[in-house]
């Protein structure tokens, strides 16, 4: 499903002394198949934007199309849309509620696929839990509250992907995880991306994470999209990002210094590619490991 936003505008608490403009004319297209990163400060409008994508926030200004769904249309089938656009909130483990892991994961199915048989439900839950790397037989009857922090997050994600959404949106999915947890989570997202899940959208503060994982990204600032493109294009504009008070990946920082010294490194800013390009440069300069 292609996502097209045009002139998207949204104000919190309109007509009150606390009114604040969260989105101010956002134009953004996310093509099917992209692994899309959304970058920006807290309060830049990025969370408000993603909550528009499955109509958790109703459109009040501008237009938004997600696949064949026109979100400006009052008759739009919002429930159906939500089953196709999955949303994992920040710290999703805080939304677990059921007595057992199995029931919690099945919650979305019960809501979206009314009338699904018990066997089908169990099969879908099993598949979702296995996708996130949990042992169905071991965890299905456990209370979600007795699991470890990392396991809880996996269960919560399973509860969203159980309906196999075509678009999966995750708000700071790796927040609070240890390095191993982060790596595993990103591996998980790549493993489902390209299958039934066509498009992944992650909101992240971690520029290195964006550089390493995303095919495309957009930078939000003050409710507007100020940059959009491939990570290599965005991080090549390091000065502008820094001017916005945002971080840049370690590789971009390094490339910036090298450029100032007259060494241009044409890289996509992933660590491996950066190392390769630096080596190529070194060999060109006459270096050899002989």
């Amino acid at each position: 499903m292609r996502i097209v936003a045009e002139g998207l505008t949204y104000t919190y608490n309109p007509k009150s002394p606390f009114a604040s403009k969260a989105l101010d004319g956002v134009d953004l297209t996310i093509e099917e198949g992209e692994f899309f990163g959304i970058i920006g400060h807290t309060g830049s409008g990025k969370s408000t934007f993603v909550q528009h994508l499955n109509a958790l926030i109703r459109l009040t200004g501008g237009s938004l199309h997600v696949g064949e769904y026109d979100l400006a249309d009052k008759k739009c089938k919002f429930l159906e849309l939500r089953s196709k656009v999955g949303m994992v909130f920040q710290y999703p483990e805080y939304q677990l509620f059921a007595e057992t892991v199995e029931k919690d994961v099945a919650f979305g199915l019960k809501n979206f696929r009314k009338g699904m048989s018990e066997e089908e439900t169990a099969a879908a839950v099993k598949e979702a839990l296995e996708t996130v790397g949990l042992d169905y037989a071991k965890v299905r009857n456990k209370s979600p509250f007795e699991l470890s922090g990392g396991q809880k997050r996996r269960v919560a994600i399973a509860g969203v992907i159980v309906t196999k959404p075509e678009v999966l949106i995750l708000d700071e999915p790796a927040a609070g995880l240890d390095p191993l947890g982060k790596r595993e989570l990103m591996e998980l997202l790549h493993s489902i991306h390209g299958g039934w899940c066509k498009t992944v959208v992650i909101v992240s503060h971690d520029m290195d994470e964006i550089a390493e994982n995303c095919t495309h990204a957009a930078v939000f600032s003050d409710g507007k999209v100020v940059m959009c493109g491939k990570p290599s294009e965005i991080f090549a504009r390091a000065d502008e990002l820094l001017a916005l008070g945002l971080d840049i990946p370690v590789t971009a920082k390094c490339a910036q210094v090298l450029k100032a010294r007259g060494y241009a490194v044409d890289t996509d800013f992933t660590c491996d590619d950066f190392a390769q390009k630096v080596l190529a440069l070194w060999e060109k300069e006459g270096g050899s490991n002989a």
Partner: protein
Amino acid sequence: MEAVKFENVKFSYREDGKDPALNGVTLCIEEGQFVAVLGMNGSGKSTLAKLINALLIPFSGKVEVFGMDTSDEKKTFEIRKNAGMVFQNPDNQTVASIVEDDVAFGPENIGVPREEIGKRIDFALDAVGMQEFRKSTPARLSGGQKQRIAIAGVLAILPKIMILDESTAMLDPRGRREVMDVVRRLNREKGMTVILITHFMDEALQADRAIVMHRGEVVMDGAPEEIFARSDELETYNLTLPRAAYVCKKLQEAGMPVRNAFTAEELAEGICESLRKA
């Protein structure tokens, strides 16, 4: 002087002592040191922190803070006055709806006279750069600002040790930077002993010493640069190198003579040097 001393400390969250969270930790932290504690979730980092200020008491072994045994209940108050602690969630540590009232909470608890409390609030808010928010409400502040208020709340007790239990984990990069700046300044300028528990490898680089915990034990202990130079060992504890160190290692493995680097700046310098010589 030794600020903190662990002697073969064991601790378990279970009554029967099984599944120990700490399994025989011996450790000594000098006054004025800046120590980063690394390790994956469940490695015992937070337990270690809570044992220092007597929020937890060891099952066996001994924890001493400036020579005071944490298992001695009469010393609990004195130990907590000396070892302040900032927690992970910025929302769950403030008791009052106005910044200055919250900072006053600690001094009030230990019976500091009113005029003196005012001075301590001034000192603490200045130290974290939040004086202008004195009359604000925490609910309106950013995550980084809230954590700085939490640090001020601890500073107002005038502790000698500051423990930060994953206090940057829930912050955005800007918030993390704010908190790290404050912590580094406290250590450098005020000689505060800092114990920083974190998942962020780059934060550990700012410390004098890094300790790696794994399954309730201290498995690595040394200068951060030393620890990150032992990358294979780190990997067995499921920790990753800071990205700059990772790139540096890749280059070295391919035969490029780059000196060890841990930050982007160091890496850039190293690469330039190597390119010039090539």
